[in-house]
């Protein structure tokens, strides 16, 4: 595992080199003051101080609207897949880890999903360790951590004057060697400083008890807590659409004259129409069943089927729910 170091002052140079290879998305502040992954112009310095992005980076791999097929005069054609490289710089470890969950569905699933596979193949993820977690964060309880590089190709840790860069995958090794002239070797001091910073961040994260969640949710399937917890749910898709691991989708056709497309769009299990049959029967008729499905999918079904929790503890659903629901509450109630 290659470990290197780059001064903050040389970061623009690094981004410049990546731009020669492909599209680069890096943290930049928008007009409203939010930091987002942005394909910013060259002279915009990369922002290093931010909590996390409002939107998870999943849309880079599973676009919210994606053409699966095009139609022309009654014939279906495969769209050409993108082949240019994309670099995502500054993704938080929780969001990088979410990619491992999506991989389980879209790469390891039989058959693999060719659209996801191509975007995953052409995209390089450079994660930035978290130094300022929020009170809604609980990555350490779901198998992650502020300095966890799993899912990323390179993990960066911000130090006083440098970034420590750690290759996580062969793709990450290749990237670091391609810009070797910009990098210095990591010193012991740098490694120690990184450990200290990550450790300090870790200590700020409040734990949520999710050990053995699959078994506890099996036991709690008929708990009255689903009814009480779901009363406030408005049935919108905010939690799902902001979630870095939620991946349910719809497929619809569009046609204008003889041309059209089959398009995949994000969908959400909180919507009544999600499971509504043509006959009018709905296997999940009320918010109770729908809210339970969401929690069960993340903390039980995915564990049973794919041996992985489908929650990375990013807290987006908690911060953004219009009714301020908090999935940690129901997990605690069930002792999950």
């Amino acid at each position, binding site marked *: 595992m290659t470990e290197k170091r780059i001064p903050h002052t040389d970061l623009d140079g690094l981004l410049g080199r990546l731009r020669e290879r492909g599209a680069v998305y890096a943290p930049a502040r928008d007009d409203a003051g939010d930091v987002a992954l942005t394909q910013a112009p060259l002279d915009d310095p990369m922002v290093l101080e931010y909590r996390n992005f409002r939107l998870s980076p999943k849309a880079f791999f599973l676009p919210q609207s994606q053409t699966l097929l095009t139609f022309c005069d009654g014939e279906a054609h495969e769209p050409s897949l993108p082949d240019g490289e994309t670099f995502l710089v500054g993704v938080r470890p929780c969001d990088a880890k979410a990619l491992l969950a999506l991989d389980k569905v879209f790469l390891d699933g039989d058959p*693999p999903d060719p659209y996801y596979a191509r975007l995953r193949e052409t995209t390089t993820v450079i994660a930035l360790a978290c130094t300022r977690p929020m009170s809604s964060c609980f990555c350490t309880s779901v198998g992650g951590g502020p300095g966890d590089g799993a899912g990323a190709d390179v993990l960066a840790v911000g130090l006083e004057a440098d970034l420590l860069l750690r290759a996580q995958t062969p793709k990450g090794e290749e990237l670091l060697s391609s810009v070797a002239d910009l990098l210095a070797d990591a010193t012991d001091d740098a490694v120690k400083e990184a450990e200290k910073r990550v450790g300090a961040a870790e200590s700020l994260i409040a734990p949520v008890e999710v050990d053995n969640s699959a078994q506890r949710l099996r036991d709690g399937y008929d708990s009255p807590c689903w009814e009480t917890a779901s009363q406030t749910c408005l049935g919108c898709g905010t939690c799902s659409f902001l979630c870095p691991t939620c991946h349910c989708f719809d497929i619809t056709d569009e046609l204008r004259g003889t041309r*059209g497309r089959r398009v995949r769009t994000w969908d959400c299990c909180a919507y009544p129409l999600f499971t509504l049959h043509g006959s009018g029967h709905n296997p*999940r008729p009320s918010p109770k069943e729908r809210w339970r499905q969401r929690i069960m999918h993340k903390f039980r079904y995915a564990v049973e089927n794919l041996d992985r929790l489908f929650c990375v503890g990013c807290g987006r659903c908690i911060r953004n729910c219009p009714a301020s629901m908090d999935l940690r509450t129901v997990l605690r109630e069930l002792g999950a």
Partner: protein
Amino acid sequence: MARNPYLPYPARIDEVIVENEARDIKTFRLVFEDPKSAVEFDHLPGQFAELSLPGMGEAPFGIASSPTETDYLLFTIKRVGLFTTEIHSVEAGTAIGVRGPMGRPFPWDTMAGKNLLIIGGGFAFTTLRAAIKYILDPANRSRFGSILVIYGARTPGELMYKDELTEWQARDGIDVHLTVDHADEHWTQHEGVVTSLLGALKPSADNTLVLVCGPPIMIRFTLVSLATLGFSEDAIILSLEMRMKCGIGKCGRCNIGSKYVCKDGPVFTYQELRTLPTEY
């Protein structure tokens, strides 16, 4: 490289057969445009496929033909929703896309050497037709014991595959009993719900597996009758319908608990279903 799982095989509807008096059930006979597709589309009764009309959407349907019918695929479709209304309006010659085969078929290995009781109600008889055709094929018939079929519909006019039913009733190697909820003046066979015919025939549970497909209410009562007749839960095989999109275990809408109907089903034993939540 593996075939894009979202890309349908191009096919053509070469015949449309109206199955019932209400004219809301039609059988579509499909022929692949490329004979190679027919080879790749290697299916067994109990499986389903996604049919699509370009620009009009896609929907899953049980395959009503047996793989022993090598020249074509059959799909029997009731007009209920968006896509089914669309496909009911097309004529022979229309291009159609087919994705599949999908899902787990009836457990043919387990069924070998067993007597089979096949119970169908109404429109859900489609994959059971595929099963019967498959069993009756000369290459397969000797693999199974006795075959008893019970099929019911609301009225005589609502029974599907009428010519074949007549043919099966006339031949050896299969015992086919029909019933209708409401008989007309020409009806000479059993009158009453499926369970009343089942109760009258009292089939033996000995070395017998049951395939059941029908509307939920029929299934509920049939399960009670089967239990009375001594059938165990693992001897009863059911096929479920769920709203589906991708058909390949990714889009996340057809799960019942941790089972995906599109991949782990649509065929389940009653024993398996009992372990799942009742969200179906």
